[in-house]
């Protein structure tokens, strides 16, 4: 149905945007092992994006590439968290922590979806997201427990990313129409908070508080970075309308 397609689009766009951002790190990471690790995560995510966008497109006869390359900014459905810039490595890790803990909880529940395709994608993705979560947690511990400088940086990074957490757990009207198919975002919050509190307290860090961003990605309103990100993502495809690659 259109609603299921829309829901798949939400999840697919989150994965696509995050993958696009992580891909930038390949050849620029702090050490070669991280070029490999961040590259792996980006690859997993683009895999999830492709499955989800493919599924989203079936309702309207569009391919994954139609959706990735030929929509304009207001047609994207990603949440602002995924649109946060890479920043320094600390910002990327802070974003990864939030993203992977959220996605882990989401996919865990989505395995029980009454929609078999979504359930299967969730099942397959879960193992990978578990690794992403472990990667992020290990780096949070290292950066928080490393040098004064790294502790300062990860603290700043977490504070910068935190305004964008809230949006992930908002129950948009679409969710009401997808009882049993979609996971209700607000129900994931307690589990998310538990994991985060555990990690941050092991790291000796405070959970950041304060300002909550308006968000609005599910309704097509995006963070400033999106226009630039899409310009780069789509430039070649749009220069050659109708071409195949």
């Amino acid at each position, binding site marked *: 149905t259109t609603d299921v397609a829309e829901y798949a689009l939400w999840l697919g766009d989150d994965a696509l945007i995050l993958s696009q951002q992580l891909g930038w790190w*390949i*050849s620029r990471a702090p050490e070669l092992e991280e*070029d490999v690790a961040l590259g792996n995560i980006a690859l997993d995510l683009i895999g999830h994006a492709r499955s989800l966008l493919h599924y989203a497109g079936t309702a309207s006869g569009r391919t994954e590439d139609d959706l990735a390359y030929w929509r304009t900014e207001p047609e994207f459905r990603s949440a602002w968290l995924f649109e946060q810039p890479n920043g320094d490595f600390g910002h990327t890790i802070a974003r990864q922590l939030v993203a992977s803990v959220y996605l882990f909880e989401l996919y865990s529940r989505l395995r029980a979806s009454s929609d078999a395709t979504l359930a299967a994608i969730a099942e397959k993705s879960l193992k990978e997201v578990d690794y992403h979560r472990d990667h992020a947690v290990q780096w949070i511990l*290292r950066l928080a427990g*490393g040098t004064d400088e790294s502790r300062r940086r990860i603290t700043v990074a977490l504070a910068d990313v935190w305004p964008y957490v809230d949006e992930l757990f908002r129950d948009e009207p679409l969710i009401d129409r997808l009882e049993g198919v979609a996971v209700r975002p607000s129900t994931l919050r307690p589990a998310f908070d538990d994991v985060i509190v555990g990690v941050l307290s092991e790291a000796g860090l405070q959970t950041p508080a304060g300002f909550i961003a308006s968000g609005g990605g599910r309704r097509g309103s995006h963070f400033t970075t999106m226009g630039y990100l899409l310009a780069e993502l789509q430039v070649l495809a749009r220069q050659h309308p109708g071409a195949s690659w």
Partner: protein
Amino acid sequence: SPDERQFDDLIAADSRIEPRDWMPDAYRKTLVRQISQHAHSEIIGMQPEANWITRAPSLKRKAILMAKVQDEAGHGLYLYSAAQTLGTPRDEMTEALIAGKARYSSIFNYPTPTWADMGAIGWLVDGAAICNQVPLCRASYGPYGRAMVRICKEESFHQRQGFEILLELMRGTDAQRAMAQDAVDRWYWPALQMFGPPDDASPNSAQSMAWNIKRFSNDELRQRFVSMLVPQAEVLGVTLPDPKLRLDEETGQYEMSEIDWTEFNEVLAGRGPMNAQRLQRRRDAHEDGAWVREAAAEYARKQAAAREVAA
């Protein structure tokens, strides 16, 4: 000495030399130079392709490209490990690279202005690399030979993927075909130059061949490469940019135009289009990541100390 004799015997038997074995200083030095240069090439070689990760024109191609560039980081890691078994620490090699004191393959100092370069690099550059590298799987130094086995397997994937990119372009629009031919025009000669100077002007080759590090001469490898390319170019429908290229039926060898080494030497001497940028990008990544590496090291120290107290 008995050590020397044992080494010579192993070489004569075409057996592997292992890290614990005695080896002549010159052998060790040659290997460190070659392996670290190869590792650096993998690392610098990530950049021309990473240039297109964010702009790849389909999600499938983006995934394949990310996997490829990531593989190159992996190859760098194996090779640095192999070089480390010869007693040179990775930090030292990295510092030499960043300081501009270490060599890497000149081919990566050319720019990648179009998507077709992703095809041409795979088909031509990785193709040439494979011709160079397959014989290295039998290199006398064990860790190097074994690293090369793994690398060659992945490289042949990469070459096929490059071929497929070009094939898709050649079957596409006029603009796509023009893009593919232009990329082949730009990469063909630099790829041929990857085999090094003609045999009569290659002073280090003889010793390397005697030590079973190198197995074929530069010109032999170049022939092998061209004979592989010609039929593939036909399938693709691209023209190799050498009007003199033709098979001499008698000798079975390809005749070709003389290679212009002037530009090659310019690039080698650091005056290529991208030399400065490649090094700067590596230096930036290294410097920007310093605080992360320090944090990881410090954390590891603290953890070790805590375990010691606990024990």
